[in-house]
């Protein structure tokens, strides 16, 4: 019996099938931030002028409001910023180290859990239960608790062979927590691939595993790149939590300066660093999606 539902080829096409004869990009009707969808020169100038006036007006209100000098002194102190920024940035390398390793581990562990949870048939019930329990557990416990439990708890056992390394436990805790989220993202992607795709793969003689690997997972992963990157941005920010273990990461460093100088500008500087690293990642995702769309729609030219 054929499954009811959409055509299997709705892959990545937002809202219905595109006309195959359509030139690439001509279907792009999304409103843009700049220019509101129309790119004629006059409209661009109007957009720029109105934006400058609007935000200039807001800035004027803020800097002329009472209390602004105190806020500026405490949060946006230029001298403090120049002094602390390079030091914090230097320690931010430790955060990058932590979240890069955690991200690689998350990608692998989460995929493993998602595949376990998607195994069909009654034989695999215990594995499915295990994967579901893992997800429930690590999505439920606050990240900082997992970091504390592992980072202080494990070394305190004084067992032979259990290392006392704050980075190790911090990375492990982040990996365990974020794998739970990312596994759910993967699973949603796996379930979004129409069952007829699996039927087609199996009917050609591909085993269950090969169907998963060649047909289901490539489609699933492509669909979930944006939510996946969202979780990674969360992970990158939470890398700062490792400072509760006594690691002097960027946050630890910023707090040391803040407490020494009684000034919050170092924390603002660190916020800025986090913002600056996340924005390119968001653009990267947009670009990846657009490239995939283009690749599949303009291939007729070959």
């Amino acid at each position: 019996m054929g499954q009811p539902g959409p055509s299997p080829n709705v892959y990545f096409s937002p809202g219905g099938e595109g006309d195959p004869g359509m030139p690439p990009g001509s279907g792009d009707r999304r409103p843009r931030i700049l220019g509101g969808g129309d790119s004629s020169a006059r409209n661009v100038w109007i957009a720029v002028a109105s934006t400058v006036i609007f935000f200039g007006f807001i800035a004027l209100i803020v800097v002329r409001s009472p209390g602004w000098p105190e806020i500026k002194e405490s949060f946006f102190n230029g001298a403090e910023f120049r002094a602390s920024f390079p030091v914090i940035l230097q320690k931010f390398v430790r955060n990058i180290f932590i979240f890069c390793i955690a991200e690689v581990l998350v990608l692998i562990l989460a995929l493993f859990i998602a595949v376990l949870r998607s195994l069909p048939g009654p034989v695999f019930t215990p594995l499915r239960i295990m994967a579901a329990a893992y997800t429930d557990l690590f999505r439920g416990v606050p990240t900082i608790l997992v970091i504390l439990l592992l980072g202080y708890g494990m070394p305190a056992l004084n067992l032979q062979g259990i290392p006392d390394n704050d980075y190790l436990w911090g990375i492990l805790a982040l990996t365990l927590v974020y794998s739970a989220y990312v596994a759910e993202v993967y699973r949603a992607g796996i379930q979004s691939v129409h069952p007829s795709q699996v039927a087609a793969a199996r009917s050609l003689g591909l085993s269950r595993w090969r169907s998963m690997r060649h047909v289901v997972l490539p489609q699933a992963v492509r669909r979930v790149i944006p939510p996946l990157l969202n979780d990674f941005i969360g992970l990158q920010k939470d890398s700062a939590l490792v400072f509760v273990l006594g690691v002097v990461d960027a946050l630890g460093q910023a707090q040391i300066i803040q407490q020494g100088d009684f000034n919050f500008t170092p924390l603002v500087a660190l916020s800025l660093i986090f913002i600056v690293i996340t924005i390119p990642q968001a653009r990267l995702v947009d670009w990846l999606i657009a490239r995939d769309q283009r690749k599949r729609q303009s291939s007729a030219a070959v």
Partner: protein
Amino acid sequence: MTRAVEIRGLHKSFDDLEVLKGIDLAVDSHEVVCLIGASGSGKSTLLRCINLLEPIDAGSIAIGDEEITAHGVNVDATRRRVGIVFQAFNLFPHMTVLRNVTLAPREVLKASKADAERDAMALLERFGLADKASDYPDRLSGGQQQRVAIVRALAMKPDILLLDEVTSALDPVLVAEVLDQIRELAEQGMTMIIATHEMGFARDVANRVFFLHQGQILEEGPPDRIFSEPEQEETRRFLDRIIAAGRM
């Protein structure tokens, strides 16, 4: 003549709904058989059972002289011998046409990349699709997609090809190109079981026609007899409805 498929006493239910109620059907090598009948009569389910996409409740299915519904049969090995083409094409949208066609030969038959691609290109060439090899499926018309799906099934060199209402999802103007491809396969001696609503085509291409009604084969015979002098009242009523709908 050797036996290609032999089905005996096949029963299949989905929960409480019995879809196939004891099907007996035998197809010889190089024979083309059409299954006709109303939607819901069990045609698709029967084809999916032959491909082992649906587990059966009772009865047996043999391909050649191997009983594929026996215990311990290698399901994947069996499927290599039985190709199926679906109503909705089910091409892999993330792969080019060439990759769609070469995936199973490479992964299942362990053909080298060069061999698989050479064979695939030869097949695509034969059916006028060579210039589409590097396209992704959603750049193709429905008719082209379905022809690629047929080529993909052929690339496994199956003993039998099952076609499940392969023109039902197509614009009327695109139906002919797919039917021509199937006709060509029939002339070349491909063993096929075809579920179809295209009565003119069935009459044209089939050696025998089976009329399914509510999960049973009510009548079978050469197309000329079935279409001009059906013995069963139900068959006559079905054909009258088809004629009234302008499908024959």
